[in-house]
């Protein structure tokens, strides 16, 4: 059983989806990450949401631009390691001035036990900024909903590429076990 406190701590996982839905996001593209599992599941269960599993994150950048040209708002969910895969494709967003919402769950930060995650995790935020995105970082679960809302406003009203970074400290570091 979840304690009241841990259920409060985990409410943001559903809130990500609720905020996207409330803002008329019609397509959700993703490469799965444990931190996005709830949002992905809710997207899959929603008959009005087009959910797209990608083979690599950069597809999501191009897909979002196409969706926008067709009149759909979209969001791309990925882990920090996937940001590195997107770099050249992000030139599409800057050159075409199409809106974009990335929701990035961090690895390679606070308490990371897998050293392979650290190189990309330690440059993810700077990389997104260098590529010209407006970047908001969330370190506390209370801030997820309104930060994502602010980012959506910047993207779809302000017409900018935008990323929300969900810190590993908030998500909780993945336990490395013998089976993982």
């Amino acid at each position, binding site marked *: 059983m979840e304690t009241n406190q841990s259920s409060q701590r985990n409410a943001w996982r559903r809130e990500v989806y609720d905020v996207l839905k409330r803002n008329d996001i019609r397509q959700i593209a993703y490469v799965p990450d444990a931190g996005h599992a709830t949002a992905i599941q809710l997207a899959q269960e929603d008959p009005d949401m*087009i959910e797209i599993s990608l*083979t690599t994150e950069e*597809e999501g950048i*191009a897909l979002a631009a196409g969706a926008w*040209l*067709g009149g*759909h708002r*979209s969001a791309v969910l990925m882990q920090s390691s996937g940001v590195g895969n997107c770099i050249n494709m992000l030139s*599409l967003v800057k050159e075409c001035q199409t809106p974009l919402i990335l929701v990035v769950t961090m690895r390679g930060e606070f308490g990371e036990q897998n050293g392979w995650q650290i190189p990309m995790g330690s440059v993810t935020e700077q990389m997104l900024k260098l590529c010209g995105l407006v970047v908001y970082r969330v370190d506390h679960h209370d801030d997820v909903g309104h930060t994502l809302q602010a980012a959506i406003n910047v993207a779809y009203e302000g017409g900018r590429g935008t990323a929300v970074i969900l810190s590993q400290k908030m998500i909780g570091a993945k336990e490395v076990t013998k089976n993982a």
Partner: protein
Amino acid sequence: MLDRREVVRKVVMALPERPTIFTSLGNPTFDVSHLGDHPGNFYLFGAMGGAVAMGLGFALAQPQRRVLVVAGDGEMLMGMGSLATVALKQPTNLSILVLDNELYRETGGQATHTAHHTNLAAVAKGCGISSSYDIRDDGELENFMARFKAGGEPMFACAKVRPDPAASVTMPLRSGAAQHFRFIDALKRCSREPEVQQ
């Protein structure tokens, strides 16, 4: 080996209503713009590997509209994973035409993988686009054209084209932002008065 301009002309003109077209960087852009510029064309001059995914996002948003992605073999090799993503979603209005000259024309004519052992139609089929065509002559092009006109399922065609560079280059609107605003404006007007556009 086919003539790339002729293949593009036949496919683009085949439907009663002009499809929305996304072109990859390089010659596919010039092959399409050679037929006349149109606000329903979106030309990529970068973002290599993204043309199919961009076409997919649009096709999912506008399921009633036929969408054609025209890509080079270099572009398609870079975005092969997107063929699996297309197959996953099975968009019935999306077709992909690859003009395969087996080389990187823009960078000095270096051979691509398709000059050797890679068959992109087989890749597309293996990814799950069951209507995939390997086109090497007029007869095979006609077979694809019949299927393309009928529509109703995602389609992939890889046409082997002669490696000679296209005769003339018509440089279309290049700015991504200008194309974005022009495209959206045209789509809005088109949705309001569908009969005016053709």
